[in-house]
């Protein structure tokens, strides 16, 4: 599993960082930042799916 973030759609709700803080963080202005750009460890898959399904801007895509 990998994640793609659409930086143009992200408006900094931070709901991904709340759902999966190991994978998503905050940049200087509070928009999302992807912390794991490569393969996501299996233990975090549930959290990443929740990050995707909690983003109000639908800015996260999961690639499997």
């Amino acid at each position, binding site marked *: 599993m990998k994640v793609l973030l659409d930086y143009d759609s992200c408006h900094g709700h931070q*709901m991904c960082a709340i759902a999966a803080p190991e994978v998503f963080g905050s940049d*200087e202005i509070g928009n999302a930042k992807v912390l794991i750009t490569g393969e996501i460890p299996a233990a975090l898959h549930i959290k990443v799916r*929740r990050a995707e399904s909690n983003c109000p801007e639908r800015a996260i895509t999961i690639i499997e």
Partner: protein
Amino acid sequence: MTDTQKPVTDITTDYDIFAPDFINNPYPRYTEIRESKCPIAHTERYEGSWLPTRYDDVVAIAQEYETFTSRQILVMPPANGRSEGPYAAVGAPPITSDPPDHHWHRRLILPVFAPQAVAQYEPGTRDLCNALIDEFIDKGVADAASDYAQHIPVRVISKMLGVPLTMEDEFTDWVRGALENITDSERRMKSFRSIVEYFIGEVQSRAANPREDDFITQLMNTEVEGKKVPIEYVLGVCNLMLVAGIDTTWSAIGSCMWHMAQHPEHRKQLREHPDLWPTAVEELLRVYAPVTMARIVDHDIEFQGCPMKAGDRVLMAFPAANRDPRQFENPDEVILDRQNNRHVAFGSGIHRCAGSNLARLELRVALQTWLERIPEFELIDPSSVTWAGGQVHGPRKCMVKF
């Protein structure tokens, strides 16, 4: 008869967001509209407005900022005299800004509201919550709204702005004048003038004696394209901090206190599973989203079959969107570990609430601190709870015993 006194005939063509039943409990009204043949209602009251209630419609309007502009963002037309005089150009940027200015209006304030920046306010917020509880814990009764929730955001914002806490009562009164009593045009205008004049004083005192690590001094010294930002921007951001940062968060904290007073099972669940706090806060924000914002239609358009005209007001009822069963399973139920929750309590698109991370922090700390100190409590009389509504929904009197 004034608009507030006429009985409502058909809610889809004549809604009144200031009718007592709508203020006290708007959710059945939203459901009635949402599930009718007319999920975007219209009213002629208060110079007319549209009221979309479905999640997809509210989000689409929030996203289409060129069609649905932020020239006005309140659910009522501007107070008489608001567009005249020396303060006419003072808004509440970036909420009241449209692109292209919106970009720099927002960019300048976002860093102070990023999660890593607001984290510094957590210990102080916890201390102030504890100090409020110290005042009433031995009495066995308290007003969870006016003895607790009401005092938290105003003190956090005052600290952030670097202004004295002794202004608390004035700030609270002005903010209520600007947001809660907005059918009273004269009080709104007076509140707005008081806010601007207060901050003109603060700006002048800093111009004479600049301060280190001070929000207002930093704003005054900010340059955009080589020029210092205009004074209207500085005053506008200060206005925003009060108007958007106080009544809203206090309403959310109050609604959550009202909920917790009636749900011992949720208090127990959070006590036994503190790891649920992050999702619990989002779920409470979904169900008790306090804010409805407005937009002004830029040009004639047919939106979902509704003939909207240039200049029409559209109310983005985020509390209605957050309870749309098309988007949320069992939408009226509080499910503290809800997994799918694309709620829009903080809006959607380019105007996402700039203070959302601070609001979340205040809400979580306020609830955690209360539940640690007062794990068991209940409403004294559910029928005696009073509410504010319209622009911002939340309890104003909420007596509990413990």
